[in-house]
Each structure stands twice: as C-alpha cells, then as structure tokens.
C-alpha cells in the first residue's frame, strides 16, 4: 500500500508519514500541490493521499481538482487534512473531489479509522 502525504509543514509530513509507515504503508511526501503533482507524474501511484489545505505554490483544494481532472487517479481516495478554521470550506473540497477529511490534530487511531472508512487498509 502506498500513501502520499502533502503538507508544507515538514514536521507534519514526518509525523503523519511515521504513523502511516508504521501501519505498513510505503509513504512519499510533497511540500505543496505542485510538488505532489510532479511526484505523481514521476510514476508514484498512491492508494490514498492525505492533503493539507493551506500550502504555497498550489493549495490543497487545487491539488484535489488537478488530481480529479486526470482520469488515471479517479479511484485514488483523497483525504483533506483540515483545521477547524478550514472546516467551513470542506463542502467545496468534497465537491472538488475529496472523499474524506481528517481534522488536526489527530492521532494514529483517527488516521486508521478514516483509512478504514475509505476502504484503504492493510
């Protein structure tokens, strides 16, 4: 199983990545939407992507839109990692093509629970 973590915070990438790796995922990360796209273009095919909202260069919702505009990623579940402040925009994220959200701060159990809902499990 492969997961992609997209967040401009290095520490969040690390923490989330560690949780996912521990859960048996192969994890690749990117610091913003644009880098996430180039990661995908380089051939990385994730089984799930965790995407932060607010990032430089290309933000989370734009990334979701971009991913959904490419048919080869239709089946990849996309999970928005949000904060309270961003929850108000979650509707737009769903419309753009996100499948689930995860509210910060979260722990290992929360991630795994959401992954299970999305049918991404080990």
């Amino acid at each position, binding site marked *: 199983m492969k997961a992609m973590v997209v967040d*401009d*915070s*290095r*520490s*969040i990438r*690390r*923490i989330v990545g*560690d949780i996912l790796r521990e859960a048996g995922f192969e994890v690749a990360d990117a*610091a*913003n939407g*644009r*880098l996430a796209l180039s990661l995908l273009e380089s051939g990385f095919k994730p089984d799930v992507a965790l995407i*932060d909202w*607010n*990032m*430089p*260069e*290309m*933000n989370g*919702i*734009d990334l979701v839109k971009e991913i959904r505009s490419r048919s080869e990623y239709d*089946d990849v*579940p996309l999970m928005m990692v949000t*904060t*309270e*402040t961003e*929850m*108000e*925009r*979650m*509707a*737009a994220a*769903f*419309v753009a*093509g*996100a*499948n*689930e*959200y*995860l*509210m*910060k*701060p*979260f*722990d290992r*159990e*929360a991630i795994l*629970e*959401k992954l299970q*809902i*999305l*049918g991404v499990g080990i």
Partner: protein
Amino acid sequence: MSFEDTELIKEFVVESQEHLSDVEEKLLAMEEQGDNIDVSVVNTVFRAVHSIKGAAGFMGLNTLEKLAHRGEEVLNKLRSKEIRPTSDVINALLRATDRIKFLLDSIETSNELDISDQLKMLGEILDCEEPSSLSQSFDGGAKQLPETQRKALDIQLSEEALREFLEECIENTDQLEQDLLAIEEHCDDDTIINRIFRSIHTIKGSSGFVGYTELESLAHAAEDLLVLIRDGKLQFHKSMSHVLLKCIDVIRSMIKALESKDSSLALDGMELIASLRLLQQEKPAPRNKPLGPSDLASEHHTPTASPETEIEKGEIPMVTSIVPTVSSASSVPVLPSSSKSDAVATQNKAVPDTNLQESSIRVDVSILDKLMTCVGELVLARNQILQHSNRSSDGGLQASAQRLNIITSELQEHVMKTRMQPIGNVWSKFPRLVRDLAVICGKQVRIEMEGKETELDKTIIEAVKDPLTHLVRNTVDHGIETPQARIQKGKSPEGCLYLRAYHEGGLVNIEIADDGSGLDLDRIRAKALERNLVSPDVLAKMSDRDVAQLIFVPGFSTAEKVSNVSGRGVGMDVVKTNIEKIGGSVDLQTQRHIGTTIRIKIPLTLAIIPAIIVLDNQRRYAIPQVNLVELVRLEGHDEVQKVEWIQGAPVYRLRGKLLPLVFLNEALRTGASETNANLESLNIVVLKAEDRQFGLVVDRIIDSEEIVVKPLSKQLKGLTAYSGTTIMGDGKVALILDVIGLAKSSSVLSSNPETNGVEMQDKNSNNGSNSQTLLVVDVNESERCAIPLSQITRLEKLDPRRIEVSNHQEVIQYRNCILPLMRLDRVLGTGGSYREDTEIDVIVYTTDERSVGLVVHQVVDITETVVKVEKKSTQIGRTGSMILLDQVTELLDLPGLLSLAN
C-alpha cells in the same frame, strides 16, 4: 435553505450526478459476482456515496445526507462481507441511488422531499432503524481533541520528529518576523499577509500535532486575527505587528523550552492571547483597498459575526450539522463560499515561493566538518606528492600530480562552499533589533542591506554575530540622532543604518554605516585624557582618524551614561578583540554630523589560510599572513648593529619609528641559535598585533604557502605562543605562531595602552608640553636620575675593556669614531662604582656632529609621565627633583649638563 453559495451547490449536483452515473452498472455487477464480490468495486461506490454524504452535510442538505448515509452503511457491510449482494440488497441500493439522483435534480426543495420508503428498505437490510456506529465517522477525527490538554513539554515524539518540529518552528518564526517587519512598510501587501498567515498556520498545525497546547493556542489566536486581516475585515496597523512580534518572542521562548526540556524558559502566552482577541474585536476598518475576490467572499457574512468567533464559542459546524437526527437546516452556521478559497488559491499562486525542497538537502554540520578535515588531509597529501613529483624526472608522474593538484584545489573550494552561509543569516535578526531599539530610544531608523548573500564560513558567521550585533546596537543608540535633532540639522527625521557586505581580495568586508551624528572627537579627546588613556602630548599629535580609533582602547566608552541599550558591559575593545581573534580587522571612519562607517575585514575561512613559513633554530613555523606587514632583511654587520637596546629590549629604527624586536628563539626559549652580535644578516618579519607592530627575528624566511590549520592537542592548548599546527609538504609538523600571544608573552603588547604607546613617543621634540618620556637611570646604588628621552640619541651597551684613555679622557671606539666618555657620577659629583666586568650602559648624546657617551651605573626604565618638578634646581643641567617610580629622582637637562662638563 441556509447555504447560500448556489454556484457551489450547482457544481455539487453536477459532480454527484457524474459519480452516480456508473453506480447502477456497478451495483448490477456486484449482484452477479455474488460471494466473489470485488471489494474494489464496492469501495468505488462507497466513496462516491460517502463524498455526497459529506458535502451534503456541510451544505445543509439534510435529506440527501440522511439517505446517502444509510446507503453508505449498507455498502460498508457489503464491503466487509457482513451481508451478501443479494437481489434485495442491490435492489434497495438501486432504489436509493435513484432517489438520490432525484434529490439532486430538485436540489432546492430536496430537504422537503420524502425519503422514508428508501430509508425503510435500507433499514430492513441493516436490520435496524437506527443508524449504526458508522454515523460517527465524520467526527472521529475530532474526538481526541480534549485529550490534547496534555502538559506542555510532556511530548512523546521521536527525537528526529521533535528536532524537525523545532527546526521548522524556528524557520517559521524567522520568516514571520521578517514579514511582520515588511508589512509595517506595506500594509496592503496581500502576498506578505498570506505568507504571515501561512507561517502562523503551520506553527499552529504542527504544534497541535506534537501536543504542545500552549503554543498551539497562542498560534491559534494569532491565526484568527490574521484571518480577519487577510479577508479584509480588519485593517492591519502597527499595534497589531507589535503584539504579533511579541508573540514571536513567546513562541521562541516556548521552542527554547522544548528544546532544552526546561519548561521554566517558556514565557506565558495567556496575556498575549487576550491582546490578540482584543484586537480581533476592533471595528472593521474602512476599506481603502479595491474590492478583491477575497472581499467578495466576505460579503456573504453578516459583518457582526465572523465564522471564527463562532468557532471560538464552540459551535463547531460539523458537530451540529452531521448528527443525522432532527438537526434543522438553520443550525448550520454561515459558511463562506468557495470563491474565498479560490481567492486564496490565486493569491498563493502569486507568491514567488522559492522552493528549496527540490534542490537542497539538510546535512549534519558534523559531516561537513569531517569532510573539511578530509579535504585538509588531501591538501597535505597533495603537497607531498607535488614535492616528490618536482624532484622526479618522470613526466607521467608530474602530469598526474598536476591533475591531482587542480582537482584537489577545486574540491577544496567546493567543500568550503558547503560550509558557507550568507551573512544575511545574521543580518536577518537586525531589522527587529533595530526596530525595537529605535522604539526604546525614541528614534526613527531605517535599515538597508546590501550584499546579504555574501557568504562566509559557518564558524566565522558565528564569531561575527555578537560583534556585529553590538555595533548595530551602538549605531542606533549613539550614532543616530533623535528625529528632532535630525530635523534641526536639516536631515530627514528617519536615520539610516546601512549594512553592506562584499568580497575583496580574499577577505569579506562588512560595513556598518549610518548617517547619524558621527563621533564627537573633542569629547573622545577629553574622555581619553580623563581616563588617562593617552597623554596630552601624544594626543596633540594624533590625527583625527587616530583619535576616532581611541574608542577601541580598553576602558573607553563615549556614552555619557551607559544605557541599557548598548551598554552591556562590553566595549568597543571587545568587539575589536573578537574580530581580531578570527584574523579580522576593524576600521572606523567618521565625520561629524554626517555619519560613521565601521568597516570590518574578515577572512573567508579559518580552516585553510595563507601563511608565511619561517625557519628558526632548525624548526619551521607558520605565521598567518593576516598578521604580516612586511619583511625586512638587514644585510651586513653594520646594518645588524643598528639594532638598539632600550631597557634590555632590542628595537630597530624602521623608517623613523622604533620597532620592538622579538627574537623567536628567545621568545620560545628554544635556545640561542647564534648570537645577534656575530650575525651577518638579520631577517625581521614585521607583524601587527592588535594596533602595534613588532619585528620577529627569525633565522630564515622560507616561503608563503596555503596551510591547513589543525587544532593543538588538549595538552598544548594552554600555550599562548601557538595557535595551531599544520603539516608541511614533506609530512613534518610545523607549529603555527599566535602572533598576538607571542607579542604579549614578549611584553611587546601589554594590556596597558600607555606602554603600547612607545612607538608614538619617538619624536625628537619636546614642544613645551609637560608630559615627557623619561629615561630613568641609576647614578649609583642609591641615587637616581631621569633624562628626557628626546635628548638622547642612542643607548648602547659597551664592553668596558674597550675603554681607552686619550688626553686624560676616557674614550671608546664607536662606529669608527672616537667617542669621549663621561661618568655620570663624576659629572654630578656624587661618586659611585662601576662594574668593570660586565657591559656598561652608555647614553649617547649627539649634537652638531659631536657625540658624547654618558656612562651610567644602570638603565632602569623608560617611562612616560607628566613632569611635575617638586623642587626646582637653579644649577645648570639640573631641572629639579621629582618623584618617579616611587623614588626621588633628579631630572637632568643633558645639553646643559654637558656644556657645563666641557
């Protein structure tokens, strides 16, 4: 319907219909597969329905949400194979899908439409009317929120993750600080506001993750304020940046506390949070910006209640909206439109955020240090091979050695570059420092920087940080005048602090310039006299430039009172010493009412330095070239004899200035090589130590070479004469001389600036000022005399056996002339004895081509003093007596005395 963004809803409908378009097909496929159901197909359908449920919940489309939710539950059981895809199940799902499609078609009235049939069918499959535990799925993420009330610093994280978090926080606070200072200038710059927001946001997000609640709440409060600013609901003003800058301080203290695991270091953020909240309640500022897309979004809100404040009150939207019971549409809080997020997106695109992620990696400094050591070793090996190849006639070896030479140099250069950091890293702290200082001092100071990218070795960067900070503080505190004073002088009220860095001749120049008041030279003169740092005589002869340099003398402080801004117990002398410690120099130029420029020159690196190699007593030593002034060679016996002895210390008169000499073999006590007297030539390496020059006498000067500095072993660290070692081309070790240490241990340089001033005293004039340099001599065992040094031509030590008698007059052959000798005790009529076995001290007095040698019992000292004659004498040749060096001393007037004797 409360959800007002019809555009988004329309989009939602289209999207959902697309999602559902092939659901029917897939459901039928599931039915066919029966027990061999393809879980991935179920997943696809599940996600489609799940997304519809999620979005519907947020949009207040409760009927749709309820139906989708029930469908999702059935699909979940199918996925986990709790139920089989029987025709009943598939049928119910197909019916539900049809109804969802219908709800979507008439979305505006969807909340009023009846779905009880479909719910019932699905409910029968689930075997219960009530929704299952899955209903919690959408708030699962938040359930752990209360648990985050963990105590600060009680953070369970891997060391690496924690370090990453800390590093990131530091980076973000630095960026934040820069941006906050920038925003003070350009209040309307959306790009900067966005960047500020993002920095705070990241700090908040990651600190929440590591469970640092105090930090998170502070960042959260700051973020809330910034959201209002970003969305144009509040106008940014100075008091905000003031509070936000304070936040940075507190955040830094918290980071430090976490870093050192000492919670006492963390400042309390509660007060700041309150200030931040207070700022949020300010009345919306009148718009002076054109309406941007982000402003349009905010038009959806009632101006009194922003979503942020609602969240603060605990009305977290998802909690109220998703509970599938009777939650009414009106309970869904006002949601902003998607156009807002679009606006953020476009703004983000405009940020030219250079992304280092792709092109740079982080490397531990210790690895770079090791790499540098290896390169050092390689350079030495290269030097050895070059020596061999030079002696060899093997053309192939020579060619490869040359190649090795070139590659090694290139490698060395690049490895050095890895250790380079831009000076901007240090400077970036200054805008904040200057701003805060300016506020305290009631001044207006603008800081300008040029050459931020100029790179320096990491160790040097560290070393110049404090001196630079001190100089910047000084400039703001003392250099730049108050706005009123500036206006009076016809300057703009805002002073300018100008930082400039550039490379020049292998050195880095750093300038700290201001357009302030310049140094008050008269006050410096007065202060120097008051503190007895320099005698009036010397001061009178000093150029303005030299006077300005007096501020670097230990014990000097021009400020009338030591303020808490620049007075931190360190003076300019410490700045100078610290810069010189790393082989740098400090220079100061000042013009009254126009400004001051301090120029610091420092080497690029300390690891590999150019040095001059000398030989003394069969040993080789390296002398760093930064200390080198010139090389002087005295050729022939006569020249060597020009070395004079004052008070037992050798000096050489170089272009009219007395240059104290240090014989390296004596200074290092390596034993006499050959005595000075028998030498046919003398090699003097003129060196500068702090502001003094001295000549180091060595046997031979070999060559100049790039040497790799290796630290001294622990046991040798205490030696002041050496600063390190290096390995020469032939593989042998050579010690690197510590020029300043050497000067100090040889008493060329002392902590007393007065004795350092010997060089300045070599003027054959005594222009009536009452401060004089006196030669103190013993007439006999008990009586002491002093003679103005200006009257003395030379001091000699002569062999008494060379004394001859001619015409009842003692004479000695001196420089191919006959020098008549006079015994001071006899001239004074005091009587005394002379040691006839050892060398005698002779004071040579020359006038109109005629010389006289005055034999004294012993030369005691040379001292500079303000002459205060206690008891005037009427006798010719005797000025009077005074107390000198705690002894009554008779001051002599040599010309008068000798005229009398003749």
